[in-house]
């Protein structure tokens, strides 16, 4: 079922199919709203705004916003990201992100398959801190505006989706420079890596996944483990595509909330997909067993 949801999400987020005739991107009111996943708003077919691009645009304009007293500091996108993360954690990655869906499709291509080293997962926090927050905020021009550096230097989804504009707007072809070639190289690398590893971009580079992953622990949608029902068969570990042990780390930031472990792998119902604010007090250590006679 998840693949159908992903396909429908990708189509709905990119539903402007008039672009071959209009030769421009969608500019209607739906673009006031962000999509939960990574979907470049310069994609000719995109009807919603990318939350990561939006975040960078606001951060890049912080200084002028403060100087001119508009105070448009990105409350809208900060609140949106927090709400999506609190509701589903990385479910937006696992169920709604078109670029994640694309990588899953690439991974179906028959080839030798490799694991993604777990240590590389920390890279996405560095990308978030440097390219999505730090550089847009601090590397500013004479007027005080920064630039969306993650979009400019890294985003493979942007390269893939916005790249179509080079064919629709030939004037753009004259402006191709170093950054585009760097981005094309990254895109080729990510596409090749996705063939041999499961969703490597999401697990190592995506700053949006880093934001949602930090909220996995508190998300409304969660995976619960009942140790009394668990027979330690390990099927959930085999089924987890991102290399987690769902019995012991159901809330890790790497979990994409695909729910495969709970809905397909677990034979005893020890792992369940649950909805509701987590009772954080359950995390407190158990009381020691009482001794006879005490």
């Amino acid at each position, binding site marked *: 079922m998840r693949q159908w949801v992903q396909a429908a999400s990708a189509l709905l987020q990119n539903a402007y199919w008039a672009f071959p005739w209009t030769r421009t991107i969608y500019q209607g009111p739906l673009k006031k709203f962000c999509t939960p996943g990574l979907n470049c708003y310069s994609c000719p077919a995109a009807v919603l705004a990318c939350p990561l691009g939006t975040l960078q645009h606001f951060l890049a304009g912080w200084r002028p916003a403060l100087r001119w007293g508009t105070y448009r500091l990105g409350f809208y996108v900060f609140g949106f990201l927090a709400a999506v993360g609190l509701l589903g954690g990385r479910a937006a990655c696992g169920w709604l992100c078109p670029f994640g869906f694309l990588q899953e499709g690439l991974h179906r291509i028959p080839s030798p398959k490799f694991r993604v080293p777990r240590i590389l997962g920390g890279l996405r926090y560095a990308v978030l801190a440097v390219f999505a927050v730090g550089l847009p905020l601090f590397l500013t021009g004479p007027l005080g505006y920064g630039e*969306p550096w993650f979009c400019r230097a890294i*985003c493979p989804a942007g390269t893939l989706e916005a790249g179509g504009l080079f064919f629709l707007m030939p004037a753009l072809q004259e402006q191709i420079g170093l950054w585009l070639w*760097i981005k094309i190289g990254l895109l080729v690398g990510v596409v090749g890596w996705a063939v041999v590893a499961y969703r490597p971009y999401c697990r190592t580079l995506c700053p949006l996944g880093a934001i949602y992953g930090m909220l996995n622990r508190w998300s409304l949608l969660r995976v619960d483990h009942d140790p009394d029902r668990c027979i330690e068969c390990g099927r959930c570990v085999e089924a987890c595509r991102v290399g987690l042990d769902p019995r012991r780390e159901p809330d890790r930031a790497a979990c994409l909330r695909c729910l495969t472990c709970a809905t397909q792998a677990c034979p005893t119902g020890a792992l369940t997909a649950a909805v509701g604010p987590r*009772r954080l007090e359950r995390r407190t250590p158990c009381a020691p067993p009482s001794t006879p006679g005490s």
Partner: protein
Amino acid sequence: MRWMWWTGLGLAGAAVALGWYLGEATQVLMNAATVCLSCMGIG
């Protein structure tokens, strides 16, 4: 501790509403409705 989760969601909703009031949604539209040259690695 569930009140913390509801507080978080309430704050997130309030931030969205404040942003909308300040005109940020319109700014999102303006940013997103033009071809973002940075998104294509140029500009």
